[in-house]
């Protein structure tokens, strides 16, 4: 008897250690990255690092502004493309689609979310780049190789489709049937019900899904790296090349130990990503948790 209790005690302590260790990963990552980027922060300071745009590692100049702008452009394009499409898709799947079509559609969203990032990158190079170069860009600018923030945005948009669709669908399912029935009974059409009842009720969830999608898009590395052109210049149009932060880290890991302060600068880039994504994630998770609680009540 005592042995059984002892075993339970020991195992419980062991599991507690495992749990604390893996949760503290969040802190450890932040501290580790900060510790490594201290040298560059001390030398140049936060504001100069973030707001200047000269990137000359050999001369010790590290301005992250072009990379931050590259990330923002790509992310914004991705969200602008993905959000309306995914919202409409989720509405169709939840509110309109007959059960049979629902059964056919859901696996594809799952399959899409299973495709590795590098495959999206290859697809971008093979399909999106030529499309932009030959069919889209000539209508707007004189010349484009296709490698642009637009290409990055499109590839990213497709990558975040499954995430947004699944979260918004979840949120839509939490809306009480009574509310919809009441609206329909008053003579509203289905679309009017969606517009005036469902969307209004689902707004926090849609915001949370968007914030989560933004943070996913922020950190996506390899697919974006393959199609963005990677030029350390601030983009001014969607056909300009861009150089997002994650791509910067991935592209330069090779030489990072051979140039002074370079490793510190790259770790600072990782720290920036970490902080931004951490904030965004916490915001959206808090909103979603609140929704869940409302549903449970």
């Amino acid at each position, binding site marked *: 008897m005592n042995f*059984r209790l002892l*075993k*339970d005690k020991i*195992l*419980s302590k062991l*599991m507690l250690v495992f*749990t604390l260790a*893996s*949760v503290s*990963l*969040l802190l450890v*990552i932040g501290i*580790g*990255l900060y510790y*490594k980027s201290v040298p560059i922060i001390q030398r140049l300071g936060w504001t100069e690092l973030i707001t200047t745009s000269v990137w000359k590692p050999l001369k010790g100049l590290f301005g992250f502004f072009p990379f931050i702008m590259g990330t923002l452009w790509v992310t914004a394009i991705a969200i602008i493309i993905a959000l309306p*499409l995914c919202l*409409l*898709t989720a*509405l*169709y*799947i939840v509110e*309109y689609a007959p059960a049979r079509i629902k059964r056919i*559609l859901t*696996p*594809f969203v799952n399959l*899409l979310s*299973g*495709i*590795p*990032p*590098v*495959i999206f*990158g*290859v*697809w971008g*190079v*093979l*399909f999106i780049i030529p499309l932009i170069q030959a069919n889209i860009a000539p209508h707007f600018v004189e010349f484009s190789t296709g490698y642009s923030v637009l290409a990055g945005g499109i590839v990213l948009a*497709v990558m975040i*489709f499954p995430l947004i669709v699944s979260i918004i669908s979840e949120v839509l399912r939490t809306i009480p049937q009574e509310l919809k029935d009441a609206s329909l009974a008053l003579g509203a*059409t289905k*679309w*009017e019900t969606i517009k005036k009842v469902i969307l209004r009720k689902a707004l926090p969830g849609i915001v949370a899904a968007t914030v989560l999608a933004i943070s996913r898009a*922020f*950190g996506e*590395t*390899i697919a974006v790296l*393959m199609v963005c052109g990677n030029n350390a210049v601030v983009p001014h149009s969607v056909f300009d090349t861009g150089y997002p932060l994650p791509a910067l*880290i991935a592209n330069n*890991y090779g030489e990072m130990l051979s140039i002074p302060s370079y490793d510190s600068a*790259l*770790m600072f880039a*990782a720290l920036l*990503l*970490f902080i931004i*994504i*951490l904030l965004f*994630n*916490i915001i959206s*998770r808090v909103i979603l948790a609140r929704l869940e609680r409302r549903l449970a009540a």
Partner: protein
Amino acid sequence: MRKRKFEELFFRVLMILATIIVSGSFFLIVGTIFFKGLPYMNWDMITKTPGGGFYIGKEGGILNAIIGSFYVAGGATVLGLIISIPVAIFINLYMDGKRFLSNTIRMAFDVLFGIPSIVYGAFGFLIMVYFGIRASLLGGIIAVTLLVIPILVRTLDEVIRTVPFELRDATLSLGATRWETAKVVLRQIRPGIFTAILLYFGRAIGDVASVLFTAGFSDNIPTSLHEPAATLPLAIFFQLGSPVEEVQGRGYASALILTIIVLIITVLADILIKKFSKHKI
């Protein structure tokens, strides 16, 4: 009246179009990869390691990368499970009455799940530098393990929560300790664990940003944990960057191989989920 009907119709068409685009993008991607990759596929690709001059278009295959990827993903999944099963059990069975705390922990894992793999890669690199490990199979496994722990914990957590409370109560009321109850619950969720393994193995095999710094690259199949290991996504990335057309083509073929592996895993997991959810109590 007619305006309202028209609006209804208009948005319905818009929704169907959006749905076609979103679900059709899957076919577009897989179709493109098949179309471009198939002409360069041959047996050598999956049965040979790169020969001399492979990267200027001479013969060889990417067996090194396929095996390397399976090693990294396999190692990371096993290591991840060893850590995340106890964590999932702890949150659910040992934290009764501490709702706020367990929910905070859940949220921490959700947030960890959102941290991009490049950050895990950079952090894994820091760990390796700290402990003096060179880019190797071990380094890759460590980084990918960190990456899969949060998702594994949350998936197992969701699976455990589907086990009816009555079952736990019954076990506990018979005088079982919490650990003995945990064993009963674990037996209940075994199918769920298998599906989780499959899903995250698929994810681990396709991730590249985390192994970029940590696993290195090698033309040989690694024979120990301390040797660098090639991985499939990285092999694709390198080959695509080559100016030689033949090598680029092989990159497409490698992409096809990775796509097929991942699709098989995803479909298998899907079938398992369906099969097991049929017999659930």
